[in-house]
């Protein structure tokens, strides 16, 4: 269990003079080195802003590399190892760096900015709020989408801490932060801090409290044991005090990173590097099993080879960076992709089955309220749902996943038409190449993707194949997509894959007439088999209302091992159903069945399955053995 110091001040990037900035940088390096030596396993650079956020406030904190640290302290590794051994921290655990923003809040309008849609906040790993008056504090406890509430205890508090507010914040999973460097620096402030902090600690009993230094210089950093002692003097038991700098920090980081990297906290999109493609023996999911829940993707310094090479570790480059949804979405044309555009690029991207395609590996529920791709006259003929330009997106779906078709490295999302008034369009369900493999690591993904599929009022056909990670269909008009409760899913086994993803589908190029070949990725199939079981169990955990899990199992003519339930889309307008989307090309023997547990929202639609209509004869409602219990 590592120790974290989540508040190392980072001064702004607009220094008054160059000298200031170099001094600041060297101070920062020193502090980092000191923290490393003292045995901390992670730190966060904290930037404080006040007032209104602007675009300039995007995260621009440079993370320090191992080489810069070693320049200053060449014998870092031996000292680090020494202290780590004493503390009981494994020597090889990486030293992590995070970026953090603290927003000082005065007015209500500023507090409104602290929501999950704020793009500037998304550029930081951790978001903290510092309320300066009572209203701000109340809002922060109850509504703001932040990770930490950091209160400046060093002066008389401008507001009162109220127990119900504190409790509400804890319930929402927000952590309170107590900084200890002021205790060291100034004797007079010590009184204030101790009395104020004691109050907080009495109420929270150490739950959801983290301790950190806001060390202005290297002399104010203290080792983890010493900090725990400080807290125990303030009224906590030693065990809770130690947890405040280790366990609480770690769970805070897990949550914060999940919020940042995962779409709607369940699904994570990663780009698959092209170098993987040559490595077809290694199963794809081997990488997923190594998912590190508190890795921020970069800034992890691995200390193993420090002693050997004194050079920056190269392992960091292997961590796959999550694709930021926002950036993808922003680049999307508003009307969705034209299939023909996609197709042209798709030729090159076709890979043999074993190729890894981009996959959705976000454990966040994918809201597949995807804008449907513009149906085109394309030769791709799936049983497609009509595609509409303006997909009726689900209310809550703000970031539809779209497949970037021609790019093997991008995530494909099957988009499907929403119900549109125009019936005549052909739906192109997207992605010829949709291979979505979701990351299994996060079990919650599987379950909770709230996939919102838009329901199309389809006149056209019906089922189409796609790999959805999670589909949640939205009935016509903006019924709220029920978001799956991702928390339901426990995270344990990384092997939990969304079955969907397991199936890698390759759809043959549109030029082939109307036949979509679905090739099942062999690996995926195997994975599917494994995952079905795990998925089934996980599915059972899902909250009935909220969970949609999709499992796609492929049943190929030659291979019966994988079964995908497939439910065709309904074409009726009004029913809100949980649908299992079934993607089946008309002509296919191979049925890619996607099974979605139904959303109970409509609940009456639980019996929907029967009512699912499919024009396709090949549609089957496959065995429900894996159906999650609702």
């Amino acid at each position, binding site marked *: 269990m590592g120790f974290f110091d989540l508040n190392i001040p980072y001064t702004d990037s607009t220094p008054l003079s160059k000298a200031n900035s170099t001094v600041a940088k060297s101070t920062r390096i020193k502090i980092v080195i000191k923290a490393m030596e003292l045995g901390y396993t992670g730190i966060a650079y904290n930037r404080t802003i006040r007032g209104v956020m602007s675009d300039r406030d995007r995260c621009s904190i440079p993370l320090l590399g191992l080489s810069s640290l070693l320049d200053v302290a060449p014998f870092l590794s031996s000292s680090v190892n020494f202290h780590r051994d004493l503390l009981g921290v494994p020597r090889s655990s990486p030293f992590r760096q995070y970026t953090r923003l603290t927003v000082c809040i005065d007015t209500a309008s500023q507090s409104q900015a602290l929501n999950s849609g704020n793009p500037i906040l998304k550029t930081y790993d951790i978001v903290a709020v510092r309320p300066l008056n009572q209203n701000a504090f109340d809002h922060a406890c109850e509504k703001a989408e932040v990770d930490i509430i950091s209160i400046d205890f060093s002066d008389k508090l401008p507001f009162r801490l109220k127990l119900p507010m504190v409790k509400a914040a804890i319930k929402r999973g927000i952590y309170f932060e107590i900084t200890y460097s002021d205790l060291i620096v100034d004797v007079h402030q010590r009184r204030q801090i101790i009395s104020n902090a004691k109050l907080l600690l009495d109420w929270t009993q150490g739950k959801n409290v983290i301790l950190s230094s806001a060390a202005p210089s290297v002399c104010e950093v203290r080792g983890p044991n010493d900090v725990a002692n400080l807290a*125990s003097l303030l009224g906590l038991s030693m065990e809770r005090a130690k947890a405040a700098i280790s366990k609480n920090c770690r769970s805070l980081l897990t949550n914060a990173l999940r919020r940042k990297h995962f779409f709607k906290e369940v699904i994570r999109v990663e780009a698959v590097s092209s170098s993987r493609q040559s490595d077809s023996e290694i199963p794809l999911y081997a990488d997923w099993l190594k998912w590190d829940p508190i890795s921020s993707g970069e800034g992890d310094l691995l200390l193993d080879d420090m002693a050997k090479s004194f050079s920056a570790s190269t392992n960091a480059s292997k961590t796959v960076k999550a694709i930021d949804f926002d950036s993808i979405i922003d680049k999307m044309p508003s009307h969705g992709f034209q299939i023909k555009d996609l197709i042209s690029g798709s030729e090159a991207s076709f890979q043999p089955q074993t190729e890894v395609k981009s996959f959705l590996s976000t454990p966040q529920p994918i809201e597949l309220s995807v804008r449907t791709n513009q149906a085109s006259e394309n030769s791709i003929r799936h049983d497609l749902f009509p595609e509409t330009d303006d997909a009726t997106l689900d209310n809550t779906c703000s970031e539809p996943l779209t497949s970037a078709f021609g790019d093997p490295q991008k995530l494909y999302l099957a988009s499907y038409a929403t119900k549109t008034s125009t019936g005549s369009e052909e739906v192109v369900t997207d992605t010829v190449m949709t291979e979505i493999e979701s990351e299994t690591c996060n079990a919650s993904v599987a379950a909770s993707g709230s996939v919102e599929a838009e329901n199309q009022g389809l006149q056209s056909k019906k089922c189409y194949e796609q790999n959805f990670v999670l589909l949640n269909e939205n009935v016509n008009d903006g019924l709220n997509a029920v978001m799956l409760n991702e928390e339901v899913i426990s995270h344990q086994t990384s092997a939990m894959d969304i079955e969907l993803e397991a199936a890698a589908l390759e759809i043959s190029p549109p030029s082939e007439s109307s036949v979509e070949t679905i090739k099942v990725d062999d690996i995926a199939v195997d994975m599917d088999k494994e995952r079905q079981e795990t998925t089934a169990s996980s599915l059972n955990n899902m909250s009935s209302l909220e969970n949609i899990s999709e499992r796609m199992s492929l049943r190929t003519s030659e291979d019966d091992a994988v079964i995908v339930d497939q439910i065709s889309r309904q074409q009726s307008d009004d029913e809100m159903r949980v649908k299992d989307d079934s993607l089946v090309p008309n002509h296919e023997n191979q049925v890619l069945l996607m099974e979605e547990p139904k959303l109970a929202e409509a609940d009456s639609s639980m019996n929907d399955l029967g009512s699912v209509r499919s024009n396709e004869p090949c549609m089957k409602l496959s065995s429900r053995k894996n159906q999650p219990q609702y």
Partner: protein
Amino acid sequence: MVMEVLLDPNKEMSGDDSIVITQFNISKAIKDSILVNFGECGLASSLRSFQVKYVNSITKLCIIRASRDEYKKIWYSISMVRSIGNCLVLFNLLDLSGSIKACKTAALKCDELKFEQYKLMVGARLSVDVIRHMQNCIEKIKILEH
């Protein structure tokens, strides 16, 4: 009874041996800190059992004794120490144990390791004096008593 606290002082980055730490130095600094933080009463009750038993100025290691009742306060005060004389310092707890014997073993181990690090840092400038001094210190640890 006896509470020993092993500390590793003097971890500031800015200086390099600008002051030689001795038992007296450290003791004074800690007492001042107790006075500031816990007042006369606190100082008085801790003083009864407070003692700096061993200091190694090369590896900057020291063993501090305190009673089981008061050790937390003393530990806190030690953490609050910012400077010894004019020199900025930083105390870091390495080991906390309840008997002198356990402290001795821990201290020996830490001393060895720290001395290795010191040798690395000093490199070629290692002098015989220093080595001899280290030997003396290690002997001192071994004869430390309650």
